[in-house]
Structures are given as structure tokens and as C-alpha cells.
């Protein structure tokens, strides 16, 4: 998708979008939609459902655009809206189950060469996680939220958030380790 830059100044672009200019709103959409769909996809396995969430997120972005105070990055502001929309959508559909019964493991050895793993495979590994694990892991590791924030967003305790993260890491390490061993036997990833 080619982004045609009509407004070079981001503030002017936002101002036009607040005024209801469709061309400015479309430029914002085309500039940030691929990244925001990827963020929604991190939380939601189904790509169509992820796109629906992204669309609802952009609708909220444009409706609440006049509340943006230019105090942080515009992309970060949109990203927060997308994350909250994804979490809200998942919780509405009751996809999120926090597993407290899962046994804890000792951290395994760091598999070498993880930086070479493809994003798609990592995404598939994350998709394979239980929803509770996946949500806490992505919020903390990818989007950088602290456990207190995650607990507030998901309505869980900080201990639960830490526990879910620990378990998610264990599972991912196991999956990536097996994938690495499998990949070295067939082809090299990267």
C-alpha cells in the first residue's frame, strides 16, 4: 500500500483530521494501519478478527483524536488504543483464561540463534500460547507494559501477571528450541 504524503507536518495532518477531513484521516490510516494490524495480530490469532479490531480501533482514534495533546508520539497514542481495543475484544469474547494451575518450570538454557528466527514463526509460537499467557507476554515483552499496568488492564493481580509471563517464557523457549533443532536439520532460518 503506497502512502501518499499530502500533509508533511503531523500536527497539521492531525488538525485536518480533527476537522473531519477525509483525506487527512485516510493519510493517517494508511500511514499507521499496517503497523497497527500487526499489533492487533500479536494478540488475536484470527487475522480477520484482528483486522476488525484494528478497524474499530481506528474509528476510536478518529473520534477521540481531539483529545490527543501532542505530549507523546502519535504512533504510541494510536498503539495504546489498539492494544486496549484488542484486549477489550478478547475479553468480550471470553477468550482470555488465566491458568493458575500451570506448574512452573526452571528456566531452560537460552537457545542460540534466536535472532535469526523469522517473525512469522515467532508469531505462530505466540499464537500457540494460551490466551492468558499470550496477552501478558505480548503486553510486557513486545509493548513494554509493566506488571502493575498489565494487572490494571486485565483485572488481575501483579502476581498473576508475573506468573503468566514466566510460564509463557518457558513454553516459548521450549518451542523455539525444538524449532531450532528441527530447522538445523532441514534448512537454516534467516
Amino acid at each position, binding site marked *: 500500500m503506497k502512502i501518499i504524503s499530502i500533509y508533511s507536518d503531523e500536527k497539521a495532518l492531525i488538525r485536518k483530521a480533527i476537522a473531519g477531513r477525509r483525506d487527512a484521516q485516510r493519510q493517517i490510516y494508511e500511514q499507521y494501519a499496517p503497523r497497527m494490524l*500487526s499489533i492487533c495480530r500479536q494478540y488475536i490469532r484470527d487475522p480477520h478478527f484482528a483486522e476488525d479490531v484494528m478497524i474499530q480501533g481506528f*474509528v476510536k482514534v478518529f473520534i477521540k483524536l481531539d483529545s490527543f495533546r501532542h505530549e507523546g508520539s502519535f504512533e504510541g497514542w494510536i498503539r495504546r488504543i489498539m492494544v486496549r481495543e484488542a484486549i477489550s475484544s478478547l475479553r468480550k469474547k471470553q477468550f482470555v483464561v488465566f491458568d493458575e494451575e500451570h506448574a512452573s518450570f526452571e528456566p531452560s538454557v537460552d537457545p542460540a540463534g534466536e535472532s535469526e*528466527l523469522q517473525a512469522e514463526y515467532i508469531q505462530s509460537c505466540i499464537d500457540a500460547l494460551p490466551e492468558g499467557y499470550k496477552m501478558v507476554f505480548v503486553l510486557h515483552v513486545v509493548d513494554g507494559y509493566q506488571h502493575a499496568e498489565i494487572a490494571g488492564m486485565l483485572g488481575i493481580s501483579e502476581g498473576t501477571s508475573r506468573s503468566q509471563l514466566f510460564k509463557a517464557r518457558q513454553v516459548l523457549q521450549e518451542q523455539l528450541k525444538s524449532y531450532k533443532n528441527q530447522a538445523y536439520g532441514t534448512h537454516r532460518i534467516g
Partner: protein
Amino acid sequence: MARTELDKTIRKALGQRTIAPTSDAWERVQAGLPAPRRMFRAVYYTSGVAATIAGILILSFLYFQDSGVGETPESFAGPQQPGQEARTPQQPLADAPLRTEEGSQPGPVERQVATPEPGEIAAGQQAPSRRGPVVDSGMEPKGQTEEPPAADPAEALLIQAKVEEVVARVNAAEREGGQLADAEVEQLLRDARQEILAERSARQQTTVDAMALLSEVETDLDRSFRDQIFEKLKAGYTRVRTAIADRNN
């Protein structure tokens, strides 16, 4: 440490990833948005222009209608003599323009003193002896003959009554103590003129004229004050004359 490396790897891999949405995603976003404000603004703009034009037309109509209403009373004010100027109710009586024979010449004007016609004098009464020309200083009030002709019979009767009253006073004064001074005649005419103007103003105006009321009150106060002065002087003169007579006796 291993967890840190895992986090960095995953964060780097997912942080740079982008996924292109489907082609109809923007239309779905657009469908979820409210109507563009520009349409509302255009509607407001058009309505505002229409309302402004309508307002201007209404105000213009009212303005010209009011102007026509303001001119209407003059057209119904009765027959107006050539050269007679219209006097507004707000204009003080003392400043009311009076018609003069010489027009509007500035400064002192030589003119005839108003005197009653012989036919207007009552039987057995004598006409005032002075009919010669006097010099009007311009500050003096105009004579009674300068009053515009009465438009209605009531005013004509009032003027006639005033003329007869002045003539009667002059005749009575001449019978008692000889001839009157010019200033006394002027004072009589001035009083009669003020009373005629006050009466006319009271008849013409349906509303209360503050200046007319003030003028009337000032006239009354002036008259009473003058009478008091005369009384004091008279009493003092009588007392002195009595004292001198007693001393001579």
C-alpha cells in the same frame, strides 16, 4: 539473561513487522465514522448567510417604516405657514424659532412693537400711547404679533383674550399713574407670550415635556420672588415715609 535475550529477539522480530490490511478496510473505517463536519459546516454557513440576508432585509424594512412613521405627524400637523419651521417636542420653548418679518437676520433688528388693533380694543378704553419703533437687542423675546397665526379656534380665542388682557392692564395702569415705561410694556407682552406658548405646548403634546414644566415652574418662582421683592421695598418705603412724617410732626 536467557529470558532477556528471548525478549529482545521476540521484540525485535515483532516490533518491525507490518501486515497490510485488506483493501476494503478503509471503507469500513469510514463507515464507522460520523459524517464529515464540513457538510455540517456548509449547512451552517448557508443557513447563516440566508439568516443574515433575511435579517438585513427585515431591519431595512423596519428602518424605512420607522422613518415614514416619524414623518407622518408633520403631514398631519395642520396647515403650516410658509417660512414656519417645525418645532420638535424636545426643543425648549425659549429656543423655538419665531417668524420675523425680516427673516433670519442676525443681530438687533428694528421692527414695530406689537400693539393691538383699534378694533380689538374694548369700548371706552384707550390705546397705548407709544407706537414708535424700538430697537430689539436680539436677546429680548419677540412681540406678540410675531406669533404664528392660530391654527385652531381655541388658540385664536386664547390670543384674543391675552391681547385684551394686556390692553386692559395698560389702560388701567395709565388711568392710575400715568404712562407706562417701555420695559413694563415689554414685560406684559413677554408674560402673555409665555402663557400662550405654554398653553399651546400643553395642547399639542400628549406627553409630558420636562422643559415646558421647568419653564412654567421657573416663571411662577420668578413671579413670586419678584412680588416678594416689591412687597419688601414697598413696606420699607412706607416705613421710611411714615418715620419722616412723624419726625416732621
